[in-house]
């Protein structure tokens, strides 16, 4: 009978809650951070702290009504983003920034060499940057979707969990009877 109640709940009002997820992406020279609970509700007006690789706090701010926060890419290799929500929720995420910088250096080197040969190369570089930026922008929701999907608790885990519970108590019963 209980199981019928479970199933009723599972298929009517089921959505998963109570874990904060952090979604990050770069756009231009800014990093965007978005916090939301596992069911997609944004984490509003919550504290965001950014630490550099030495563990020093470099930026502090609050998410807006949509759970969004953005800041300029800082001058360090690696940052750690910490989002603290109400009621004891907290999530951390590390992010490498090095990649972008080295890319920029290479770009400037090649342009310096080849600028004299072809004038339209600058345009090419610019186009490349624009294309990169727009691709990043275009796939951002896709990445977000994938990240959300990954974070979702799965039905199989739930059913498995119920099995574990009976198993754990069963084993305890077996050993306590001896």
């Amino acid at each position, binding site marked *: *009978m*209980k199981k019928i*109640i*479970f199933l009723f*709940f*599972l298929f009517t*009002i*089921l*959505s*998963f*809650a*109570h*874990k*904060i997820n952090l979604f990050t992406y770069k756009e231009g020279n800014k990093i965007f951070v978005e916090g939301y*609970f596992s*069911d997609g*509700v944004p984490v509003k007006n919550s504290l965001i702290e950014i630490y550099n690789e030495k563990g020093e706090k470099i930026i502090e701010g609050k998410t807006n009504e949509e759970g969004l926060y953005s800041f300029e890419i800082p001058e360090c290799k690696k940052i750690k983003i910490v989002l*603290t929500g*109400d*009621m*004891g*929720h*907290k*999530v*951390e995420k590390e992010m490498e920034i090095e990649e972008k910088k080295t890319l920029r250096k290479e770009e400037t080197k090649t342009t310096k060499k080849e600028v004299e040969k072809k004038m339209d190369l600058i345009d090419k570089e610019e186009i490349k940057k624009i294309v990169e930026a727009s691709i990043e922008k275009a796939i951002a929701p896709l990445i977000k979707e994938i990240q959300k999907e990954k974070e979702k*608790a799965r039905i199989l*885990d*739930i059913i*498995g*969990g*119920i099995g*574990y*519970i*009976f198993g*754990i*108590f*069963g084993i*305890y*019963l077996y050993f306590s009877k001896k």
Partner: protein
Amino acid sequence: MHISEGILSGSVLATGGVLAASGTIIGLRDIKGEDFVKVSLLSSSFFVASLIHVPVGPSSAHLVLNGLCGIILGWKSFPAILVSLFLQAILFQFGGLTTLGVNTCNMSIPAVISYYLFRPLIKKNLFLTGFLSGFFSILLACLFVSLSLISTNKYFLNIAKTITLVHLPIAFIEGIITGFILTFLKKTKSEIMGG
């Protein structure tokens, strides 16, 4: 209501751990024979309930069902809730392993309190018993969560207010659900209420 890792100080974690361990030992000693089925059933209800998000109120809140556990299991709620929280932590990263003790206490102590407060009413009005235990267990759990967060945040009243406001609708819903489940169980499986 699950407190994540890395928020609470060591002393709070240790206190929670010790309290949860003692509660669990008392609970396990209380389990006799066929009680195991009951404990497992309610443990899995608790496990599933926390995954059910109720779209009411300004923030994200979910069912807890610690009142139901309390009224049926009494001290046995401790092992039931401990096992559920452990699995929630490893399967869904709700809460965390270090905060397991604190979280267990936050939800089981209200369960045990409502057992002593409302269990005597069970013969008079079953639905009311269920409603009261469901309702007050959530509110008490809010209070305990706020208390455990004191060490990290001085604005205790603010946290307590926010948490309670968010959970007030849930408390009502949970009270009603607990009431219905109790009436339903009485009709179909009345033996679960005994002992």
